[in-house]
């Protein structure tokens, strides 16, 4: 399964992206999304960045701090590989 991590927002609004292939099952993915889904608006945060996870046509806002330890390395690698999407 191809997953894409996108970072948006910030003091200048830039978009950064990285993708990778994972061998997670659909069930695994559903459980992960349940755990990391971020439905909060900006709240009192200003200039903050936010992350979205795209998989099989779905795009879900996620909170990286909620990623369980067993998946952490995948998201850390994606974060390291992120490149600015030129507009």
């Amino acid at each position, binding site marked *: 399964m191809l997953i894409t991590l996108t970072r*948006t927002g910030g*003091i200048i*609004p830039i978009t950064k992206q990285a993708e990778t292939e994972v061998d997670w099952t659909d069930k695994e993915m559903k459980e992960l999304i349940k755990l990391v889904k971020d439905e909060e608006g900006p709240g009192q945060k*200003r200039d*903050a960045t*936010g992350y979205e996870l795209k998989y099989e046509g779905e795009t879900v806002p996620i909170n990286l701090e909620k990623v369980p330890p067993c998946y952490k390395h995948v998201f850390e690698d994606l*974060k*390291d590989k992120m490149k600015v999407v*030129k507009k």
Partner: protein
Amino acid sequence: MCKNHFSPVQCILPPYMTDQLVDSDDKNLSKIGINSKFRNFRFRSDREFFKETSTKEQALLCAVAKKPAKVPVLKMEVYNCKKQASTTGATVLWNDTSPKLPADKDAKNVIYAGTGTWKFYFDLFGRNSVDNLGLTIQQYIHYDKKYDNAFWDGRRMIFGDGDGIIFDSFTTDIDVIGHELTHGVTQYEANLEYHLQSGALNESFSDVFGIMIKQRMLNLDVKQSDWLIGDNVLLGKEYALRSMKAPGNGYRNHPQLGDDPQPATMDEFVKLPDTSSGDWGGVHYNSGIPNFAFYVTAYNMGGFAWEKAGKIWYAALTDKTLKKNATFSDLRKLTIKIASTLYGAKSLEAKAVTDGWNAAKVN
């Protein structure tokens, strides 16, 4: 007998008693008697004196010496996130009681600009910190690995080190630090909703005060200032995060970022989705419009921006009639009204504010 016989107020003995005491064979009692007579005389003469005084004289004489008001002082703490994407494990690197500055360059930057920001608000507007109640300014540095951003999380400021390729450390510009702290001021004042036009105003107030904080710390007037936000943060001599003087020209043809997307005028207003990926309706895009209005206003007034234009914008930010969902048009009306009140309806200052908004094509 009165226990406190040395107090003329609490121990007023009638004359026949003091006379008896004075005549006593006991030297100690004689002494008490004569002292009491003397005090009684003084008390009566004081009373006579006060009877003749006017209300004003009485008020002056009776005024209780007030305890000198506690002078507000800056309270600040700097934390090191040690490249973790969290503030939980951060350690204190410096606080305002530390005897000397830390060696860390980013810590020095945030202390310097944070102090300048606090002084800006206190010296010019009598404001004691972000909340005007002396809130400790907390600055977190070295957040995450190569994190290319700075933000206000509702309680504190957080700064990344930048990737070193496109962005330098986000502590390198005074205006960026002033920008983030001003988000706190806005939160405690108008608390402008962070989306659509009110969100763009929220962003603009941060740029407006961020640039004035830099101008004041560097003693730059409206002509000397470059009116650039994040001139050092975005690497490359010809690049800055934003230009208030010429929105849309912070960076042009940047190899990774392309062109600065900010509009300067209302007819170029950018419509984006009200989502994180849509920059909450383009809050960092459309802030170029009120930024330009402020620049034109301040430039036409001349001198130091904080003296008149800044005063008007601060009065607007702290005005109770500025609603959370205010539009550009609302701020136009309010700033013109404030300028008219402060300087007169037909003053050059009121005209400068009107011209500023007209230049940004905001009606």
